[in-house]
């Protein structure tokens, strides 16, 4: 044990390390056949689901070293990592279907704002930045994970075997995320007067972006049997949210929705002002050093 460190120069030799170098690929053994469907629509659909996870993960990771308690630093980072993992699988699948030689990094780092297809709920600042706080963060986690879990539960039977496998893996993660959020909603609603105000304000803020989550997009409509129509997940979402809110003694938020622009919103690359800044930060090193290897 005194020389845990000796083998470092021999980076090719696995046995020198405390753990093996290789991790089993998350979808090892999964059939990667591309189903018979419109390629552009299928690529776009993978990007939608992948971008939701990538952009929300970027936001959640902002909490790292800023959470109210160490346990929460660990939990939020864990959720961000799960979503980043989902994003990587989905962007890789999008690249594979697109078939023009791009990979997950080209899609994450070299697309512009108008090409990102995430819902706006994923990108808004809900804290620790000035746009929110821990209450808003928990409110978004509840809404996002409840919605995504309901969608993924329907995606496990997708005719795209990769999407089905991503969903099967993801539902275990998302169930934990939803549970974590629901427990905090109860604590904040039932804790102090102030914490109750914060979770109510947080829910009001994020609720304005819920309609967008359930609007059927033409890409989804073009992929019957492959994509999930999010409208089909609405009843389950409502039921879960009502259960959590009832347990917390909270009413469902009554707020105005943030409308689409001529029918277009995040799924069509129409984003909020926050998105450009988020991407500037995410992409700047990769873009400022073309040809670099990481």
């Amino acid at each position, binding site marked *: *044990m005194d020389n*845990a*460190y000796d083998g470092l120069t021999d980076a090719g030799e696995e046995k020198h390390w405390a753990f093996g170098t290789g991790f089993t690929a998350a979808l090892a053994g999964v059939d990667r056949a591309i189903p018979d469907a419109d390629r552009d629509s299928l690529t776009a659909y993978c990007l939608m689901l992948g971008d939701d996870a990538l952009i929300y993960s970027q936001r959640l990771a902002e909490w790292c070293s800023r959470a109210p308690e160490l346990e*929460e630093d*660990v939990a939020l980072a864990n959720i961000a990592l799960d979503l980043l993992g989902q994003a990587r699988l989905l962007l890789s699948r999008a690249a594979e279907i697109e078939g023009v030689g791009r990979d997950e990094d080209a899609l994450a780092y070299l697309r512009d704002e108008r090409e990102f297809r995430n819902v706006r709920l994923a990108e808004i600042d809900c804290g620790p930045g000035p746009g929110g706080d821990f209450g808003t963060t928990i409110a978004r986690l509840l809404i996002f994970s409840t919605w995504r879990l309901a969608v993924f539960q329907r995606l496990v039977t997708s005719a795209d075997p990769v999407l089905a496998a991503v969903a099967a893996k993801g539902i275990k993660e998302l169930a934990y995320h939803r549970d974590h959020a629901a427990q905090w909603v109860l604590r904040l609603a039932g*804790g102090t007067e102030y914490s109750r105000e*914060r979770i109510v304000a947080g829910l009001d803020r994020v609720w304005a972006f819920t309609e967008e989550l359930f609007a059927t997009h033409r890409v989804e409509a073009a992929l019957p049997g492959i994509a999930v129509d999010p409208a089909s997940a609405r009843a389950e979402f409502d039921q879960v949210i009502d259960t959590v809110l009832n347990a917390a003694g909270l009413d469902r938020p009554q707020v105005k929705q943030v409308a689409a622009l001529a029918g277009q919103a995040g799924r069509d690359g129409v984003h909020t002002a926050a998105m450009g800044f988020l991407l500037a930060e995410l992409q700047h090193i990769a873009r400022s*050093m073309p040809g670099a290897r*990481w």
Partner: protein
Amino acid sequence: MDLERQFEQTVAADHRVEPRDWMPDGYRATLIRQIAQHAHSEIIGMQPEGNWISRAPSLRRKAVLLAKVQDEAGHGLYLYAAAETLGADRAELTEKLIEGRQKYSSIFNYPTLTYADVGVIGWLVDGAAICNQVPLCRTSYGPYARAMIRVCKEESFHQRQGYELLMTMMSGTRQQREMVQDSVNRWWWPSLMMFGPSDAESSNTEQSMVWRIKRHTNDELRQRFVDMSVPQAEKLGVTLPDPALVWNPDRGHHDFGEIDWTEFWQVVKGEGPCNAERIAHRRKAHEDGAWVREAATAYARKKEQAA
């Protein structure tokens, strides 16, 4: 047999001291101080690298870095838990940290200027930490030793990932190779400083060695680190910024130059490039989160009363 003699025999026989065992007050106080400083170092250490999570240049690197910084929070948790077995209170230790009454490793008072620093911190800073910490897996206090086994396994993994990033960057563009060399130039000396003052200046070493809290002196560990790092630097293709660094066949070790002890003490005393901002960041997180912790406590109390 009196308690003190029994304690001394336990320690001398390399057996572990456990929380319920009798121990001298000085032993308890030394351990609380050391474990708390170690825990604080993990928590403050989240910042210099955490700074790069949002900008990591590939998704794989982002996942690796986020997981690493998350591990550091986990290490802080195990270590605070180990300190609590000695009667310390985590909330009080945190107060001491943000009021500047307890220290953390000075290395985290240096800034991270480029993404190469993420790799060099993994290679050199985590490497130096491993040299310091592997002997602690056999330290005399049981809960600390057991926490360190897990910490060391994860640190070894971090070091490897840092080195692997540097190897990749060295195979990239000329600009990347220059970034790596620049980063090594900035981190080499602060890494050597991580082993603390020279043995002649180290006030705590002697008693800690008798108590088997420490098992090697600062200078022994520093030498070991230098000897390990030289071949790694060669393999990587970087130059360590010390013209006096040379193999000494008579000693069977590398000779190396003198640390800038003025800078060392300046940073220890709080005048490093980032001392103020590291503490301010921790304080802000702690204060911003106060209402959340209060809510959780109030909620738990209400649940208890209702039960």
